């Protein structure tokens, strides 16, 4: 496993140059700084990074992913990037390929073509064993929780810590309890999934993912299977994660929540990202965007 990239640009991924901004600033001719040793002078390394909001180092890069299943093209050359600490929201009609995209990013269903780079490392080129390592760096939250029904909340969180990360039982339980505490469920640690409400189940599943120390979280409609009054508790956890700097890609129909929290909307339809931009840009009155149209219909149904 590699270190995360505080000195981004030191290790450019093939076909992707975080320092490419250097090319756009002709003033900087002293030579290609990224070629210097990874230990290069930190000052110049930091300086080569363009400053300003929204230009954080790229953590996850999805390059031209396509996927065909059962003769149907579900993803058509989809690309996107996620910078560290960024939260982007995927919206769009059902069957548009949002869930498939998340599963392909995670290599749960490997894409037919294209690649996913996490910290500049290509998932495509990984062995079976390394794919397991790659997967544990990316947390996945499912619409219907997918908790392990035969394990308590604590064991749901601890099982991967013990079996995948190889922690001792005691250490795994301690970590599990602290993660459950983080999502406000320490008092429910010994209950089974069938004894929890939907919102609690989803929070356990978030704790389970967080315990693996993922670099990125993918959330697939985390609130769609919940009763309306339980949605808030899950959204609050997501808000806290975002405030804590977690990098996230979320599929959701909670437009009201999403537009306040995200920097960028990605609208997916027919297996492609057809529109992308900031919420203000896309949802502006009279923008005529498909996103605005879709969101206004959602808001009508959701009553605001």
């Amino acid at each position, binding site marked *: 496993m590699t270190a995360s990239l505080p000195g981004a640009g030191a290790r450019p991924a093939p076909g992707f140059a975080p320092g490419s901004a250097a090319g756009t600033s002709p003033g900087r001719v002293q030579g290609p700084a990224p070629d210097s040793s990874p230990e290069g002078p930190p000052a110049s390394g930091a300086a080569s990074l363009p400053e300003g909001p929204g230009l954080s180092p790229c953590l996850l890069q999805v390059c031209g992913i396509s996927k065909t299943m059962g003769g149907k093209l579900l993803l058509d050359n989809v690309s996107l990037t996620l910078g560290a600490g960024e939260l982007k929201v995927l919206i769009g009609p059902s069957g548009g390929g949002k869930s498939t995209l998340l*599963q392909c990013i*995670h290599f*749960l269903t490997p894409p037919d073509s294209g690649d996913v780079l996490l910290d500049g490392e290509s998932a495509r080129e990984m062995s079976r*064993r390394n794919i*397991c*390592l790659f*997967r*544990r760096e*990316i*947390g*996945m939250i*499912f619409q*219907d*929780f*997918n*908790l*392990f*029904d*035969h394990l308590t909340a604590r064991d749901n969180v601890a*099982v*991967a810590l013990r*079996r*995948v990360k190889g922690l001792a039982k005691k250490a795994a339980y301690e970590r599990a309890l602290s993660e459950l505490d983080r999502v406000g469920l320490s008092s429910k640690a010994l*209950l*089974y999934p*069938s*004894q929890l409400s939907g919102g609690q189940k989803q929070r356990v*599943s978030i704790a*389970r*993912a967080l315990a*693996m120390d993922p670099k990125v979280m993918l959330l697939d409609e985390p609130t769609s299977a919940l009763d309306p009054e339980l949605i808030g508790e899950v959204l609050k956890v997501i808000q806290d994660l975002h405030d804590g700097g977690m990098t996230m890609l979320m599929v959701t129909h909670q437009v009201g929540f999403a537009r306040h929290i995200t920097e960028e909307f990605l609208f997916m339809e027919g297996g492609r990202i057809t529109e992308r931009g900031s919420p203000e840009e896309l949802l502006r009155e009279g923008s005529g965007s498909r996103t605005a149209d879709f969101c206004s219909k959602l808001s009508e149904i959701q009553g605001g």
Partner: protein
Amino acid sequence: MGTLEFYRAVLIPALNQGLWVSVKIIVPSALLGLTIGILAGAGRTMGRPALARVLDAYVAVFRGTPLVVQLMMWFYGLPTVSTFLESTFGQDIRPFSDLFRLSPYAASVTAFALCSGAYQSEYVRGAILSIKRGQFMAALALGFTRGQIFWRITAPAAARRALPGIGNEIIYLIKYSSLAMIVTMSELTGQTKAVASIYFRHLECYLATACYYLAIVTAATWLLAWAERRLAIPGDPSHG
């Protein structure tokens, strides 16, 4: 001989002896059958297609033919292979060809284990299929390997679902173990038949034997119910 005297001196000792033989048939058959059933059930649901097809064929054959016929084949049919081998390759092959001459006990356990395994694999298969695919995906997403998913997630969850069916099959096995009589085993039913035809007291003998079977089955039922309670997940409606 008075009735009580007959019970005390003849029937009960004979049945107790038969009971011991029955238990010696039932326990290994049930354990072997369950092992075969778990392996076959897992192979049919999660194995490579070629393996799954071979195991499907095994189940089709052993569920599709009468157990009596299978038993006869193992005991009376198989030695023909030995005879054939010896006539083809000479008596030197004896150590190998004798493997096909099963004792009545070996033939019974073989037949019961293979037949039971075919049925058990159906219960195991159903239980594995009932575990939602989402749990598999979640485990994969956490970085589990496929082997770990089977042993840590699928198997423990499926075992609880399969248990009622597995218990049912074991109870069947207890009763069809009486077929061992036709390959000359002196187990419970075989003993009864012998005593009944000597003393000509069929009704009493078979009634007594029925009580013996009922007692074994009741004990097995309790044991299985206890196991189910032990493994039950609180609040899960599918486990009562």
